[in-house]
């Protein structure tokens, strides 16, 4: 990791749109191939995760996630301005939750209908 500072433009908004987990990603670029708006580009280094170049062009269809052969390698990430808006309240206890909170409740593991 370089500690140097560079002259770079401000980080784009949203910052990411999708996030890769290098432990799972095999750099197959199938997500790059199907993305309708070319949000990502292949990594110059073979077998490494793609690089998110145009996150502001993402429309959050999730096609990249569905295309991924390695579950967990790619995650769709709503912009923070959207995550902060997705809130829910547990009816019994009145607890407040939101997408992206620090200590989230355990996942609801029920798959969608048809699976």
């Amino acid at each position: 990791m370089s500690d140097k500072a560079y002259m770079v433009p401000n980080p784009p908004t949203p910052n990411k749109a999708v996030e890769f987990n290098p432990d799972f990603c095999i750099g197959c670029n199938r997500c790059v191939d199907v993305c309708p708006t070319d949000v990502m580009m292949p990594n110059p280094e073979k077998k490494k995760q793609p690089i998110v170049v145009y996150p502001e062009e993402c429309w959050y269809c999730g096609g990249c996630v569905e295309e991924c052969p390695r579950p967990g390698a790619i995650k769709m990430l709503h912009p923070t301005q959207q995550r902060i808006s997705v809130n829910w309240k547990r009816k019994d206890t009145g607890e407040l939750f939101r997408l992206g909170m620090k200590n989230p409740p355990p996942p609801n593991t029920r798959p969608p209908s048809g699976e």
Partner: protein
Amino acid sequence: MSTWHEYVQQTGKVPEWPYPINYGKVNEIISDVLVIGGGVAGLQAAINAAKLGVKVAVLERGHAKRSGSGGAGVDHWHGAVTNPCSKVTPEMYTNACYNSSRGWTGAHVRYIITKEGWDTLLECEQMGIQIRDVHDEFKGADFRDEKTKLMFAYDYKNRHVIRVWGWNIKPMLYAEAKRLDINLQNRMMPTALLTAGGKQGNRVVGATAVNTRTGEFYIFKAKATVIATGGSAGRLAYFAPELTASGAMSDINGAGVGQALGWNAGAEFVNAEQSGHNRLSGLGYAPYSMGGAHNTYHGTPIVDADGKEVPWNDPFGRELKTVEDRFLPQPGHDFILGEGIGIGPYLQQFRSNELCNSLVDRILKGEFKLPLYADLSRLSENERRVIFGMMVGSEGKTRIAVYDTMTKAGFDPDKDLFQTPVMPAEGYAHSNFWGAGVNAPANMRSMGGGAFLTDWDLRTNLEGLYIGAGGNLYGGGCHGESHTTGRYAGKRAAEYARNAPEPVVDKRQVEKEKESAYHATHQSKEGNGWKEINGAIARIMRDYCGKHKNEITLNLGLRLLNELKTTEMASAYASNPHELGRLLECHSLISVGELVLKASLERKASNSLLDFHRLDYPAMDPPEWNKLLPIRQENDKVKVRDLPLDFHLKAPYAASYEENYKKHAEN
């Protein structure tokens, strides 16, 4: 590591463009039928043309496996009125659309949709899309037919809108297109339709395009062309993708490219002057990511901060007593038409049951406390599961973005109250809360019904040019309608192509297109980028073609668009093929802007249905202007004619829907 910034910080290097760039290299693709736009409509057009034995090529902006407004999937299918459980006929449905729109929709297209929507869906089933409850997950539910296992939405009695598990519909269409050996060309930004002799108004014989990864130039030659680009030009009046892309229902590729191709080639359009405020501007929230009671969430109980439930009423203002009533026609209803089919106002007898229309007043008076919540737990297990587990779980735009994301974060519709947006009280007048139309600035309008005018073959005024699409076709509608009209247009185009002469492209037109396509790649690197240009176009449209227009402002708008073409845009620079594609889209936006401004100049009367307000002609709806004004270009001059709203049943056409349909679709 995920982002470009991270890469640069870690390596100290700017990554080189990953694809080989060959600006100017020419590729030629020859087919019988060319389909422009590889979304659901385009692939249906391609598949159905190929099945008739002709050679087909598809020109697609993204990648045809998952692209397009409908590429992300679908959860309910409108207009399937000939399904075995339906109590609605094609005539009933068509008349409901036509009468609700007070005549301002292409009823011939609506009729074609209702005659063939169910057949189209059955073909999708054969491709592997689940359209029935084959696993008996919803056995005994009010919305399920036990014999056919079909499931219905909105109107459980009349049963013409079908719930489908369409999350994989695009990959399935793609597989079918591959099986039929269709030539799919991805990452293509089209720049022009090619016409015989290079002349506006002549037969369409292909198109030119630039690949937005390699920069290579493509000449498509075809006997017939289908335009199947969808969506509206979302970037025309507002451009801030950093804020709006995550809240939009169509992606950033929606730049009116199909309309621009047609307009510049001399195709006819109607209602381009129609626009509206509040139309899913993207300034709301991620689609369906917050509580609501509309569309997919129709019927969902809404409660206030104290848990007090908001009542529902029928369109006649009567309170509904039970949850079941929300899905059933009430006394006075003919049948419930359903939402999201490209129709603005609904006649009462076709309108959905809805949250009580006094909600805004009651919030202002303090009777209901914000925030409101969607309480899915108040529904029966079947209703809750079908809304969140099946519909939200099936539509691609929500399958990963909402179902997968929220369940992983712990949301459980059995236990949790789903918060709706907190917004000005007026925003609660419409139960599509996540759209938050109230948050859109007043001067921000979007195209309403402006689209290609077609005949009963879905052919335009140009020989060889057909349209199959949702929003881009006068009379088109939603997802299912895009499939059905694409399928129909593909067949008509193939039939024409079988006997059509060979396409001869005009060399001068090709050369001109090639030169203008690469103009931005050899400008000074100091030139503006595409975003700067897009922002300026949107500003012109907001200011000079906003709600209130007059002849002077409209002409000023045209002048400024033209100015832009010769100044900032002429010197704009594209540093790679991606930026070049986006900048070429700006050319399309300017063409569509000109179409809208010119169409607005021609309608010298205000019109309530078109939400069209001329300050210099303030009288609303004068009867002599109750007509369509088809507009096209000939030698770059505007040509306009008058057309009655019911042209589809007047000479040269027959006087009944059935007769016309038989003559055109069953020959």
